[in-house]
């Protein structure tokens, strides 16, 4: 309970900060739009050629947006010694981690929700299905957990822009694979049994794995 209260305090702080500055969501949204435009130029050679790659495209965009958003969310803490303040706050490291993770999760979900109709319109995809929504939710939990953990490390280094993706992507590969496969099924609109029996449970398992491991090591990493 103590943990949850601390985490919510940290997350709420982030949300309020975001409501005032809007720098994470706004920059990530613009970035997402640019990604869609570039994809269109890069891939749209023949009519109908986009459909087979659409799920991959969706997740490439979301993954990069996620990295951007989480990097911003942590970089903000660097100003005025915010990170030290967070770590000195009378709450456990777990609560700090969980709070930052919940904040990032909320930002990413908002961005993804706004971008879904954009994808639907600009790439002509049936993205407004509840199955896809659930897949996105599950995958984003994994993204936010791993991303928050590595953002905490990367943001303190001299090359945070490159270090976060380099650390983040190898670890979330299972989530990306499962998310792409499940989204492909959801976007095709065919039978969804494989989503429920295979990919959604897989995403759940990896979410659980990350949620157990990451806060633990986070405590380790911020010991000294």
């Amino acid at each position: 309970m103590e943990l949850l209260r601390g985490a919510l305090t940290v997350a709420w702080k982030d949300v309020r900060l975001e409501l005032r500055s809007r720098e994470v969501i706004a920059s990530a949204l613009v970035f997402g739009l640019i990604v869609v435009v570039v994809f269109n130029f890069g891939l749209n050679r023949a009519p109908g050629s986009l459909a087979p790659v659409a799920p991959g495209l969706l997740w490439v965009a979301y993954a990069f947006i996620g990295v951007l958003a989480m990097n911003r969310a942590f970089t903000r803490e660097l100003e005025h010694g915010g990170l030290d303040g967070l770590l000195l706050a009378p709450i456990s490291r777990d609560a700090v981690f969980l709070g930052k993770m919940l904040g990032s999760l909320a930002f990413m979900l908002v961005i993804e929700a706004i971008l879904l109709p954009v994808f639907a319109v600009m790439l002509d995809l049936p993205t407004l299905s509840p199955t896809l929504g659930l897949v996105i939710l599950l995958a984003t939990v994994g993204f936010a957990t791993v991303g928050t953990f590595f953002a905490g490390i990367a943001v303190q280094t001299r090359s945070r822009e490159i270090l976060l993706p380099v650390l983040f992507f190898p670890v979330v590969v299972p989530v990306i694979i499962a998310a792409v496969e499940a989204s492909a099924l959801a976007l095709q609109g065919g039978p969804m049994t494989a989503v429920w029996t295979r990919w959604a449970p897989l995403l759940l398992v990896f979410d659980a794995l990350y949620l157990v491991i990451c806060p633990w090591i986070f405590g380790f990493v911020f010991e000294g």
Partner: protein
Amino acid sequence: MQSENYTNPPAEVSAYLESEATEERSGWRSHRMRLIILVGVIALAVAYMVYAAFPGNTQYFVSVSEFLDDPRLHDGQTLRVAGALDPESFRREDGSASSRFALGDKEPDVPGLIPGTRVMEASYVGVLPDLFFNPHSEIILEGSYDAQSGVFATDNILVKCPSKYQSLQAENPDAVPGAAGATQGGY
């Protein structure tokens, strides 16, 4: 380093140190707790993956009979089909790079196609890889099926090498002497 003139710490300091120590111990206990959770979650995840998730799932290629039996793959989508070349079927027009051949199922590490297996007609334009005609190779065609002509239009040919390495002599004890000499002498 020397502790000769080191007096006993004041009471509040030792109390602090003791509280630190108990905290450490409880910290350790929570580590052990987490280790147990961690092992549990990992065991669950591994058991689940062994049970259902990955193996054989994201298929890198389908076999010829899998392809022939699955009409959903015949709609012209790009895919990979693996099998063995039917050596009798190979035809090439003189002076052109386009060739026609048939692909049948292959058992791993057994040369040639399975006798009596069904075959898939395929066409290809381009230079054939070195190991294309070797009965040991498993050939993977990348391309799409044209349902109208019933021919698999190949864009690219890959060759999967056997998982077994064998010397020329062992494979072919009565090989021509010149060939045997060439294999002995390095290059």
